[in-house]
C-alpha cells in the first residue's frame, strides 16, 4: 500500500489501464475470480483431470454458442440448435444402424442435416419474413419431432467414426479439439470474411446495410445455415460421448448457448459479439456447474446461480455502456 502511494505518477497509469481492461473484459475477469475462489474453496478444482473435464463439459454448449454468435450478431436468435443437434445425431445414427452406410459418411450426413435445417430456418426468416424467434421456434419443434419419428423414441447406436468425436486423439479429448476448431472458424468468419463483416452491419442497422448494397437476405440464410452446421457438429460430439443418439439429447441447450453469447458480451439487439467472449461465456457456465458439483451444491441450486450470473453479466454490460457513454 505504502509503496503504491509513494510513486503515484508512475504507478497509476498501468493500473488504470488494467482497470480499463477489466472493465472491458468483465466476463474474463469474472471467470478468473471464480476460478480463484473455487481453487481456494477446493484445491481439487485446479487439477489437470478436472480442467479437462470442464473443457469436455463446455464443448457442446460452446460449439452451439459459436454458431449462435453469428445469429446474435445479426440481431437474430436461434432457438432450434438443441433440437437440430439431436436430429443430426439421430439421422446419422439411423443411417448407420438401420441403413448400414459407412461411418464416415454418416458423420458427414449428421453435419449436413444440421446445415440443411439451419438453411431452411434461414430461408423462412430471410425470404418468408418470419421473425427469427418464430422461425426457429418452429424449427425447434419440427426437428425434435423428426428426431422422435426417426428414432421411434428409442436411442440408436452411432457409427465408430461418430463415437470418435467423443473420444481422445493422442492425449487430447476430441470434444475440446472440436470446440477449438469451431471457435477458430467462428473468429475467422466474423473477422476476416465479407460474410462476417456484413453480419455486423446487418445486426447494427439492417436498413442501412440493405441500402449500402449488402445482400442482406443471402447473408441471413448463410448465418442460420452456419448455426445449423455448428449444431450438427455439436450433435455429433454429444452422440460420440454417449456412443448413441438420444431422442431427448440437447433439450434446452439453446438457452445455454444464448446465455454463453450474452455473458460473453454479445447484445441481443445485434451488431456486437465476439468469438472470444462466447468461449469465455461457455467456459464460465461449465466452471460454475463443475465447481458447484465439486462443492456438492444441488443441481436445483445450480440453476438459480446460473440465472443470477446471466443477469449479473448483462447488468454489468449495461452499466459499462452507460459509464463509457
Amino acid at each position, binding site marked *: 500500500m505504502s509503496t503504491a502511494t509513494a510513486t503515484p505518477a508512475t504507478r497509476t497509469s498501468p493500473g488504470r489501464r488494467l482497470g480499463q481492461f477489466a472493465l472491458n473484459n468483465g466476463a474474463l475477469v469474472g471467470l478468473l475470480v471464480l476460478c480463484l475462489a473455487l481453487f481456494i474453496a477446493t484445491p481439487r478444482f485446479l487439477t489437470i483431470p478436472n480442467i479437462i473435464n470442464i473443457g469436455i463439459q463446455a464443448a457442446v454448449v460452446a460449439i452451439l454458442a459459436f454458431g449462435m454468435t453469428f445469429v446474435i450478431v445479426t440481431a437474430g436468435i436461434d432457438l432450434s440448435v438443441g433440437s437440430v443437434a439431436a436430429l443430426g445425431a439421430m439421422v446419422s445414427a439411423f443411417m448407420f444402424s438401420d441403413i448400414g452406410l459407412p461411418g464416415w459418411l454418416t458423420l458427414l450426413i449428421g453435419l449436413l442435416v444440421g446445415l440443411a435445417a439451419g438453411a431452411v430456418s434461414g430461408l423462412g426468416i430471410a425470404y418468408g419474413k418470419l421473425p427469427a424467434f418464430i422461425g426457429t421456434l418452429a424449427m425447434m419443434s419440427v426437428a425434435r419431432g423428426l428426431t422422435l419419428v426417426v428414432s421411434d423414441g428409442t436411442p440408436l447406436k452411432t457409427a465408430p467414426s461418430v463415437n470418435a468425436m467423443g473420444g481422445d486423439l493422442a492425449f487430447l479429448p476430441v470434444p475440446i479439439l472440436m470446440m477449438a476448431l469451431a471457435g477458430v472458424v467462428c473468429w475467422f468468419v466474423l473477422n*476476416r*470474411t*465479407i*460474410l*462476417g*463483416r*456484413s453480419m*455486423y*452491419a446487418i445486426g*447494427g*442497422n439492417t*436498413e*442501412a*446495410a*440493405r*441500402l*449500402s*448494397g*449488402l*445482400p442482406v437476405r443471402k447473408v441471413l440464410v448463410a448465418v442460420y445455415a452456419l448455426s445449423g452446421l455448428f449444431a450438427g457438429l455439436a450433435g455429433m460430439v454429444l452422440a460420440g460421448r454417449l456412443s448413441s443418439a438420444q431422442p431427448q439429447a440437447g433439450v434446452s441447450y439453446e438457452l445455454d448457448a444464448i446465455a454463453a453469447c450474452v455473458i460473453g458480451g454479445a447484445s441481443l439487439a445485434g*451488431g*456486437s459479439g465476439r468469438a472470444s467472449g462466447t468461449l469465455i461465456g461457455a467456459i464460465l457456465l461449465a466452471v460454475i456447474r463443475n465447481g458447484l458439483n465439486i462443492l456438492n451444491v444441488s443441481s436445483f441450486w445450480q440453476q438459480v446461480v446460473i440465472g443470477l450470473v446471466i443477469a449479473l453479466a448483462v447488468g454489468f454490460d449495461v452499466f459499462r455502456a452507460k459509464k463509457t457513454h
Partner: protein
Amino acid sequence: MSDPTPVLSLDGVSKRFGPVTVVDHVSVNLYPGKVTALLGENGAGKSTVIKMMCGVYQPDGGRILVDGKETVIPDTRTAEAHGIATIHQELNLAPNMSVAENVMLGRTPSAFGLVRRGELRRRAKQALDRIGLDVDLDRPVGTLGVARQQLVEIAKALAVDARILILDEPTAALTGREIRQLFDVVEELRAKGVAMAFISHHLEEIAEIGDTVTVLRDGRFVGEVPATTEQDELIRMMVGRDIEDQFPRHRSDPGEVLLKVDGLTAEGRFRDVSFEVRAGEVLGMAGLVGAGRTEVVRAIAGADDYEAGTVELLGRRLPKHRVTQAIARGIGHVPEDRKAEGLVLGGTVEENLGYATLWSTGHAGLADRRGQRRRADEVSKRLRVRLASLDQPVRDLSGGNQQKVVFGRWVQAHSRVLLLDEPTRGVDVGAKVEIYELINQVTDNGGAVVMVSSELPEVLGMSDRILVMSRGRVAGELPAEGATQDRVMALAVSAVEPGRATDLPQEGIITASGDDPAPPDRKAS
C-alpha cells in the same frame, strides 16, 4: 422593452462532462411574451443549455433564476412545477394512442385507478383550443401529419400551464406551410405572455419569429443581439469567421445523359415521373413533404419497388428493386434519415465508409482489409471528416461529419450518379458548405446529382435545374437561373391547396379536401 424582468435566467452557467467543458459561463434570459433564439453550430452547447433549463442537467457553475429568484431545478418535474415545458427535437408521442391520451400523457386524470375519460377529453380539448388546433380527439396520433403531431406535442407541453416554452428545433421536420402553422401558434403564445426559447438552424426563421438572439460558439457566450441583426453578421458570430458564399455552386456545361427516368409509377406514392440528369449536372427536387420525392429517389436506388416505368443508366435499363445492382452500375444513395437508414451507428468510421465496397473488393470470400482501410483513410481525408480515428464508432461524430461518412461511402465506391435526400438536414452552417463543395466535386468529375431538399434557398443555390413535385407528380421543371422561391412554391402547392389556386396556372388545380390529407409520408405511418 421597458425594464422587463426575465422569467427565466441562466446567469453564467457552466457544464462539464469529465474533463470537457461543454458550456462555459453562458447567460441566457427569457422574457414574458418574447422569443429568445439560441443560435450556434452543432456542438456549440445549445442542447446542454436547454437541458439545464428543464432540469435534465445540473450546472456545475453559475446560477439559475426563476422570476429573479435563485433556484435549483433538480429534475424535470420541478421544471414543470415552475411552468417550464420543453419540446424536444424528436417527437415524444405514442403513435397508437389517441390525440387526447397523448396530450394528457403522464397526467391522465383517474379515479380508483380508472381513467376518467370525460375529464381526460375535456382537459385535452382545452389544451388543444389554447393553440387553436382542431383535430379529432380520438384519432391515433400516428395517423396525423408530422406538423400536426408537432402541434399536439406543443398542446401537451402547454397542458401544464407552461409560462416558459422551450422549442428545440421544432421546424426540422416541417415544410413551409407547416412551419407557418407552427409560427401562428408561437405568435398567439407570445401575445399570451409565454416566454419562449427557440432553437433553429434556419436564420430566416430566427429573423421572423425571434425577438432576441443569443449566440453560442464552442460552449461560450458570444453575444445577445436583436433578431433583426443581419444574417451575415449572425453567421460571423456563430462560426467565428466569414462564410463568403453560402452556396458555392460552380456550374458547367452538362454532358451526356447519365440517368433517365421515364414514366415511373408506384400507386399511392408517385405517378408518371420522368426526367433526365446529365453528367456535370445537379437536379434539385423540390416539393412539400409527402409530395413523393423521397419515394421516387428510393425507387431509383432500388430500395423500393415500383409498378411501371423505367430507369436507365447510360442508356441501359436498371432492374427494379435491386439495390446491389443499382450500386454496381454506379448509383449512390444518401437517404433521408442518416441515423435510421444511412449509418450503422455502432460501426466504425472505416466500416461505414466501406459497406458499399465490402463485397466487390473481397477475394474468395475474404475481406480486403488493407485495401478497405486505405480507401477509408483516403476518402475521410479528402472529405475532411473530423475524427479521432478510423476505428471510432460513427455514433460519436457530429451530424455534419456523419453525413460526410454516408456521402464518402459513395465516393469510395466511385458512384457516378448520386441521389441525395435532404443532404444537409441537421447539419450546421460550416459543414453545409463543405457538403456543397463535395457536390461540386462530384459534378466536376463528370458525375450527376439528384438532390431532394426542403430548403428552398439550398435548392435554388445548388441546383442547375429544379424539378418540382406535388402530390406524387411532376408539377413542373425550372432552370435554376432566374427561379425564385415563390415560383417553386407555387408549383409545389399547385395541386394541393385550393385556397392558393387563384395565382396559379390553370392546369395545376385539383380540388383537395380541406382536412389535412394524411400525406403518403412514411414517417407518419
